[in-house]
């Protein structure tokens, strides 16, 4: 590890970078991830700073499984992903709570309240609760560092996976972080079969152990310094509960308003029930301010007496969607926040768009020309830069739901009788989750066309390399049974748009399954590699 990342000096780090550095300092032997905003920079920082393998994987499920194998062998591992990535990794995640990890296993998952770069704003704390694993939620990049260090200790102490829940404003917040002394890697260890073979007999035993362990874990959260209760004896009307990031808004606003209500901050889960009850004994009303879903708010009712009222997202005192900010906290205290100057004229929106010269534009031009010849064509799209094709001026793509959904949805729509149906997906998204639905389409000889827009990289998240070289994608498509005469690889160029149009016309008219892989490197990736070569 380079000297400049060790020691006690304060460095400006993104929350994501703080997690990465803490994982390195915790003695991880490897890290696994699939790119996804706002979690991408965790693995990027590991690859940049560390001398341990930091591996991009096919998807979040395979990433999680590799981290689990590392833990089984006694070594520490970090696995990171965005919130919706945990849906993909939900199977290994849920079941990893039933085995008994040996090396510390930490899942850093970054939620995206406000949907800056995501299709939903699901709250990963529900997953931690669902799997019954401990969860740490940092309030700033310093805590992101400290909690990551602690998460590995907690994981090994309770032999359980630990979730580190980030949100965008932590992941992408840059602030001074003080690091602490690094620790060595773990030695290899042998695992006990009964701990890892989830046959029903073993699984029942393991699960019962987990349930029994709840008391011990509760003891940890009740006494954790991350859960801090401050009682104000001279103010009994209102108590406030904050979680994670929200502490910063609360401290800012309460100082501005000169308010000092009793306050419980939660940074470690399961929810510290005793601290919650202590707060409830002290006040007649509790205001819960939390980023994400009303998780604590909904759990509260089961913990406190019915005569203590609860305000928050469920009660409508705080908006139930979007990101929190200082203004929302002002309003929750019943005070109108300050206003700035009026914006003097209408400011047109500036949504993201495909880069000038983006290869997807050529493919979309060809596709638009062909589809114009049909009365009601359907294009299912997927997750990546090419999703932006749905916006004007291109306007291609009727759906974008989750990784790989374009292909399965195209099959469903084709079976419903829509003609023609085209599924548009990128190379990395195809490898992530597109192969399995394509098998379904092969099995059903579905009348649809698969258009793979292959630009060699995961472009949207910052041009990480696609797992397999371009040439293998055609092998996969043909290998799982798309007829070779209807599987084409087309080297794209703006000058060849007419040729591509002709090819798409022919394959869309074909009355069965066809695939066209349109290849041309991402222009942004090309620009970056030119820059890298120049310096």
């Amino acid at each position, binding site marked *: 590890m380079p000297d400049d990342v060790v020691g006690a000096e*304060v460095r*400006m780090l*993104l929350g994501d970078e703080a997690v990465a550095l803490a994982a390195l300092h915790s003695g991880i032997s490897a890290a696994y991830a699939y790119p996804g*905003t*706002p979690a*991408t*920079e965790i693995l990027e920082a590991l690859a940049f700073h560390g001398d341990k393998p930091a591996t991009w994987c096919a998807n979040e499920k395979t990433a999680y499984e590799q981290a689990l194998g590392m833990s089984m062998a006694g070594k520490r591992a970090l696995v990171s992903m965005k919130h919706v990535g945990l849906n993909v990794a939900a199977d290994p995640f849920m079941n990893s709570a039933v085995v008994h990890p040996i090396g510390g296993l930490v899942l850093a998952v970054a939620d995206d309240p406000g949907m*800056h*770069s995501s299709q939903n704003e699901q709250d990963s704390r529900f997953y931690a609760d669902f799997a019954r694993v401990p969860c740490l939620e940092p309030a*700033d990049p310093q805590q992101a560092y400290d909690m990551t260090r602690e998460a590995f200790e907690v994981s090994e102490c309770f032999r359980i996976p630990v979730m580190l829940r980030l949100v965008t*404003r932590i992941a*992408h*917040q*840059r*602030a*001074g972080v003080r690091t602490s002394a690094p620790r060595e890697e773990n030695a290899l260890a042998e695992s006990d079969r009964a701990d890892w073979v989830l046959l029903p007999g073993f699984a029942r035993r393991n699960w019962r152990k987990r349930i029994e362990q709840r008391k011990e874990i509760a003891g940890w959260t009740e006494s954790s310094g991350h859960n801090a209760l401050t009682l104000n004896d001279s103010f009994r009307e209102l108590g406030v509960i904050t979680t994670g*990031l929200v*502490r*910063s*808004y609360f*401290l*800012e606003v309460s*100082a501005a308003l000169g308010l000092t209500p009793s306050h419980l901050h939660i940074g470690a889960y399961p929810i510290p029930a005793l601290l919650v009850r202590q707060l409830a004994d002290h006040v007649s009303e509790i205001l819960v301010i939390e980023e994400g879903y009303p998780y604590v708010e909904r759990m509260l009712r089961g913990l406190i007496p019915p005569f203590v009222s609860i305000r928050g997202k469920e009660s409508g005192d705080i908006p139930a969607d979007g990101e929190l*900010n*200082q*203004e929302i906290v*002002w309003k929750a205290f019943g005070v109108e*926040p*300050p*206003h*700035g*100057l*009026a*914006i*003097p*004229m*209408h*400011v*047109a*929106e*500036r*949504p*993201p*768009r*495909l*880069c000038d010269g983006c290869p997807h534009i050529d493919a979309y031009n060809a596709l638009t020309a062909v589809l114009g010849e049909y009365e009601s064509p359907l294009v299912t799209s997927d997750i990546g*830069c090419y999703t*932006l094709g749905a916006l*004007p*001026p291109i306007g291609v793509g009727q759906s974008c739901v989750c990784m790989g959904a374009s292909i399965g949805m195209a099959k469903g729509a084709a079976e419903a009788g829509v003609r023609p149906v085209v599924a548009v997906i990128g190379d990395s998204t195809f490898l992530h989750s597109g192969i399995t639905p394509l098998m379904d389409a092969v099995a059903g000889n579905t009348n649809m066309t698969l258009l793979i827009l292959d630009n060699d990289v995961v472009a*949207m*998240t*910052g041009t990480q390399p696609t797992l397999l070289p371009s040439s293998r994608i055609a092998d996969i498509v043909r290998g799982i049974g798309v007829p070779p005469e209807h599987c084409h690889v087309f080297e794209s160029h703006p000058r060849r748009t007419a040729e591509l149009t002709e090819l798409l016309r022919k394959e869309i008219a074909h009355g069965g399954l066809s695939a066209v892989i349109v290849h041309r490197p991402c222009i942004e990736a090309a620009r970056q590699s030119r820059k890298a070569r120049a*310096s």
Partner: protein
Amino acid sequence: MKFDIIVAGVGGQGVLSIGAIVSAAAMRSGLRAVQSEVHGMSQRGGAVVSHLRLADREIHSPTIAHGGADLIIGLEPLESLRYVDFLAAGGSLISATEPVLNIPDYPPIEEVLMSILRLPRGRVIEATKIAREAGAVKAANVVMVGAAVDFLPVDAAEVRCAIADAFRSKGERLLGANLAAFEAGQRAMQHRELVDEFETFVLTN
């Protein structure tokens, strides 16, 4: 002391680098800095904004509240206006004049610049032109740092050092051009007669 800055621009203009330079200079001056950044989708040619907070004590919220910003640095005029409601009474706005015309409904540029100049403390500067003259057309963001430097609670010398640190690894030529861009931006804002002349031209044409 606290000083809150909004840096606005379009993906690819170097919004985040401004924050990195100014926060590094603030740290060198013994201040604390917190920057809230936008990564991901908006960086593809969309509106990008960064909140940068400097203080001599602990900073809580990573984002600035409406009416709280002491300074807006705009790399693009329409993007400068987008966040005017974040400006505090008494806050200043410094904007580059050159528009990024990647949307169909961009208003007439004269109207945009006029709206900026009619703000109580609105200033514009031909950042790209100045950067080109300094020898690095891509350094318009560093020109803007120069234009803003006398508003910051940090010495210009510290900012200059932060720029030198940021570009040292990029080679002599880029380092020199960026330092020149920084100094040219500072000069342009200090020699008000040049800016005033341009502003008068905009306001009267």
